[in-house]
Structures are given as structure tokens and as C-alpha cells.
């Protein structure tokens, strides 16, 4: 059980390199965090990874099968996508929204049945949103909506979970609620998780692997502890950074403190590796 990108290349315009020859692979139960400054192509990478945008060359494969060769519904029974939480034009009740996650198992003309509703209920329990049943999604806070969207993804009973900045815009507590849930899904349910994040702290907290996008098609991929160093973070964000470690009980916590903006060295901002 692994998801793999092989020499993926994509850019919107020929003259501006965005993603070039990106390759990575993560095994089951692992968490991958994708990090990088704004506009570097994190979301684009996610869209290409899932086939929303076509790789100009290279491919994404699931257990060795090119996802383009997989029937749409088959693919989405294994891979679930959680978009950034935002309100839709038409809002649905929480339970109906989660039930939509069963869609990959239903034909165009079929309705969800009793079994689908039961699975949706389990998904809501897993994501901790059963208390929101009966509410309309438009009445939810950002944190609640994010959890509902995760529940919707879980209703597809996926092996892979792909989340686009799941903790952005949330308060401290809700950030941790989401991160803990993601961690639990990976450790207990053996789900493979890929997420975009703006926060190195969060990557350090939950991820096994990181993919760093430096821009101009340059990237680094590797195990979090070796890869997400202060040096790399400086190069990544153009900000001087201090790393603070704090022991609390048995557990060690790492905080990343942005100190000062580094003077821009233009094109050579990233480090030589």
C-alpha cells in the first residue's frame, strides 16, 4: 500500500517553472507534510497528485498503478480529499454532507441506503462531530466545518487521506483537534496521510516525512527529523528561525520561532544542497 509520484512536472506557463521532476513515495500509515512559502505550488502539487490537474510529464501511482488508468469511482474509494474549509453556496445538514462522502460507492442514479448512513455515522463518530447532527453547515465554526469535511472524507473508508491546509485559519485548540485526529487516523487506522501546511511546527508534530518546495522547481523530500532543520526552514521561508524544544512529561515538543526576515538574495535564496 503506497502512493507514489514519479518525476511529476507541471507549470502553468512555460517560462515559469513550478513543479519539476518531483518524485516521492510514502508507505501505508505514514504522514507526509508538504511545506513551502505562498505561491510555490503546494496546492498545485496536491491537484496534480490527485489528478485534478494533469501532470505534464510523470505520474501518480497507487500501489504501482497509474491513477489515470483507474476508473474514477475505484480511485476515490481509496483516496479521499479534504478541501480547505469554506462555505458553499448551498449548505447541507451535517449528516447529509457526510453522507455525500459515500458517493464513490454509488452510481449516478442511486441513492445512499441504510448501510451508507451507518458508515457515515461511524465516520462522524471517528471525527468527533456527532453532536453537530441536525445543524446546517452554514451554522458551523471554521473548526467544526473542517472536522465535518474530514468526516465526509472518512465516510468513503479510504486508505489514503489528502488534506489541503486542514489547520489553517483555526484557533490553537482546533488546530490540535485536527492534528490529533490526523495522527490518530494514521497510527490507529493505518491511513496514509498527505497534508499541506504553512506551519513547520505542525509538520514536526505529526509528520513522518516532509516535502519541501523551495520554488523554481527545487524540492527536498525526506524524513521529517533529518529534513526539517532550522537551516532548511530558513531557506524555505526566507526567515531567520530558532527552534525551541520543550519537555513536558514524557513527550518532547518542538516550537519554531520566526525571528527576523532574512535579506533576500534574489534567485539564490535557497541553500546549496
Amino acid at each position: 500500500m503506497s502512493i507514489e509520484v514519479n518525476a511529476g512536472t507541471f507549470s502553468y506557463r512555460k517560462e515559469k517553472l513550478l513543479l519539476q521532476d518531483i518524485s516521492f513515495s510514502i508507505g501505508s500509515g505514514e504522514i507526509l507534510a508538504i511545506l513551502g512559502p505562498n505561491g510555490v505550488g503546494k496546492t498545485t502539487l496536491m491537484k496534480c497528485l490527485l489528478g485534478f490537474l494533469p501532470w505534464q510529464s510523470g505520474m501518480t501511482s497507487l500501489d504501482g498503478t497509474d491513477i489515470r488508468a483507474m476508473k474514477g469511482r475505484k480511485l476515490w474509494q481509496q483516496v479521499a480529499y479534504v478541501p480547505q474549509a469554506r462555505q458553499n453556496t448551498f449548505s447541507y445538514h451535517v449528516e447529509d454532507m457526510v453522507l455525500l462522502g459515500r458517493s464513490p460507492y454509488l452510481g449516478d442514479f442511486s441513492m445512499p441506503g441504510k448501510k451508507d448512513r451507518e458508515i457515515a455515522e461511524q465516520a462522524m463518530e471517528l471525527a468527533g462531530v456527532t453532536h453537530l447532527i441536525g445543524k446546517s453547515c452554514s451554522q458551523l465554526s471554521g473548526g467544526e466545518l473542517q472536522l465535518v469535511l474530514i468526516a465526509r472524507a472518512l465516510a468513503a473508508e479510504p486508505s489514503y487521506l489528502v488534506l489541503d491546509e486542514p489547520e489553517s485559519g483555526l484557533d490553537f485548540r482546533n488546530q490540535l483537534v485536527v492534528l490529533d485526529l490526523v495522527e490518530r487516523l494514521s497510527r490507529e487506522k493505518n491511513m496514509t496521510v498527505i497534508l499541506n501546511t504553512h506551519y513547520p511546527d505542525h509538520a514536526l508534530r505529526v509528520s513522518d516525512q516532509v516535502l519541501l518546495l523551495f520554488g523554481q522547481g527545487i524540492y527536498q523530500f525526506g524524513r521529517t527529523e533529518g529534513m526539517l532543520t532550522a537551516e532548511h526552514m530558513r531557506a524555505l521561508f526566507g526567515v531567520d528561525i530558532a527552534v525551541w524544544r520543550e519537555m513536558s512529561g514524557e513527550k518532547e515538543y518542538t516550537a519554531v520561532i520566526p525571528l527576523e526576515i532574512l535579506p533576500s538574495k534574489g534567485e539564490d535564496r535557497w541553500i546549496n544542497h
Partner: protein
Amino acid sequence: MKQGRKFEIWMGASVLLILICALTALCMGQFHIELSRVMRELFIEHGNDNVHTTLYNIRIPRILMSLLAGAGLAASGAAFQSLFSNPLATPDTLGVANGASFGAALGLLLGGNAFAVQGTALFFGIMAVLLVFLVMKGMGPSNPSMLMVILAGMVISSLFSALVSLIKYVADPQDVLPVITFWLMGRFSGVTRKSLLVSLPLIGGGTAMIFLLRFRLNALSLSEEEALSMGVNLKRVRALVIGAAAMTTAAVVSVCGVIGWVGLLIPHIARMLFGNDNRYVVPASVTFGALFMLIVDTLARCVNAAEIPVSILTAVIGAPVFILLLRKSGGIRG
């Protein structure tokens, strides 16, 4: 499930109301027919007089047509609102109504009989939506955004609207122009058994297709990526929804002319009652639309000796009903 129970009660009540109103409408009209006579005609024996002719050649086709038209327009409106994630979308959004209007006006100008006019209207209504697809194709091979589809629809719509004006401009103001003008305001007086039989499969088929796709419509109303991630074959499902709604609308307009408001008002009434889940909105739109159209048409032919154009009545009745409902429900539920 509370929501389901409420829905069932409303559905049952509106179906019952449709039956009652249809029976009442059979009795009412230029000359009154006793209910007992109507029942006897319907279920026991067929007379061989004016009453029989009136019932079977005029009132029954007309009542059935108004039910079909209301159901079809409301379902199409609900479908387009979800498809375009836009609460203001109507069955006319892609220019079908204007295309069909042009076809009808052309048919009337050329002096075609009722059947020919229905044919040209249907042809140009479908033509309009095919043109929209063609414009989209011309813009490139990539997956077009729904906003571009709406824009293409507006372009085609205004093109046909201009062509309608052109025909009105050249039409003889003594005889042809009033016919075209009246036709464009919508009416059920031209419904015959033949026109009903032609439009029945189109409206029935289109509405049934939308009904079958109702759970998919929920996924379609989300962002494109979310819909894709639910395993929805966007190209196919969008084409099915557009095709079904366009066929329904073109068939309605080709027989009854342009009937505004129903496609916008009725789905929103359903939304206010049951929320936005299309598993409720679509069937509720079908029954409420049918009931509303039947009542409006019955008024249109009974209030005055001369018929009132339906479009006028849908707005005059629809607007206050809508405002009343808005007040009662505290606005459209998000």
C-alpha cells in the same frame, strides 16, 4: 428521521391537493360541468356530446400539460441551481427559452400551423443549448468552468432574444405581431392532445432524469474538485443534467410559450421547507411546481372571459407568495 417525516407529509398533502385541484379545474371554465358528470365521464361511461369533447379534447390535455410544465420547469430550475452553484439560475439560464421563442416566432411569422410552430420552437430551443456546447468547445479542450458555461449561455440567449426582436420588427402589426406577443407571454390555450403527446415524453423523460440524478446534484453543487473527489464523472453528469433540463424547458416553451418565475420560485420554496438537499428539493419542486402551475392556469382561464397570459399571473401570484414565505421561514436557509 424528523426531516423525512415532514417531507412525506408535505408530499402526501401536495399530491392530494393536486388531485382535488385537478378535479375542480375539470369542472370550471367557460361553461361549468357538474362534478358528478365529470366523475361519470372519467370513470364510468363516455357521453357523446359537448361535455365529452370539452373534457377530453380541451380540459384534460390542458390540465395535464400545466401539471407537466410546472413540474418540468421547477425541476429544471432546481437542477440548474445546483449545477451552477447559483441560487439565481433558472431553466432559461442557457438560452433555451429564448431559442425556443425564436423558433416559435419564426414559425408564426411563416404562417405555420400549431404543430409546425411547436416543431420549430423545439428545434431552436435544443439548438440554443447545442450552440452553447459548441461555443464551449471552441474555447479549448480543457474542462470549462461553470461560469464560462453561464457566460456562453448568456451570449446565445441574447443572440436569440435579438432575433426574436427582429422577427417582431418585421411581423405584420395587424395580425402576426399580436399573436407572437401573446404567445411569448405564455398560455396553455393552445394545448391539444397531439401537442401533449409530443411533449409528454420529452418533459416526462427530462424530469425523470433530473429526479434520478438528485443525489448527484448535491455533489455537483460543491466545488469542482470536491465533486471530482466524490467519484463523479463531471463531464457525463453535467451533460446529462443540461440535456435533461434543456429538453424539458424547450418542450414546455414550444407548447406553452415563455413562463417565467416557476423555475426560480418553486425550488426556493422547497429549499425553505426542507433545506438544500436535492433528495428533497427535486421531488418537492416537481409536486409544488405542478400544483402551482395548475392553479395559475385555472385562474388564467376562469377569472376573465378573455384569457390572462400565464407569465403575468405567475409573477402576480408568485411574488407575494414568495415574500410571505420568506417572512414565515425567516429567509432562505443557508
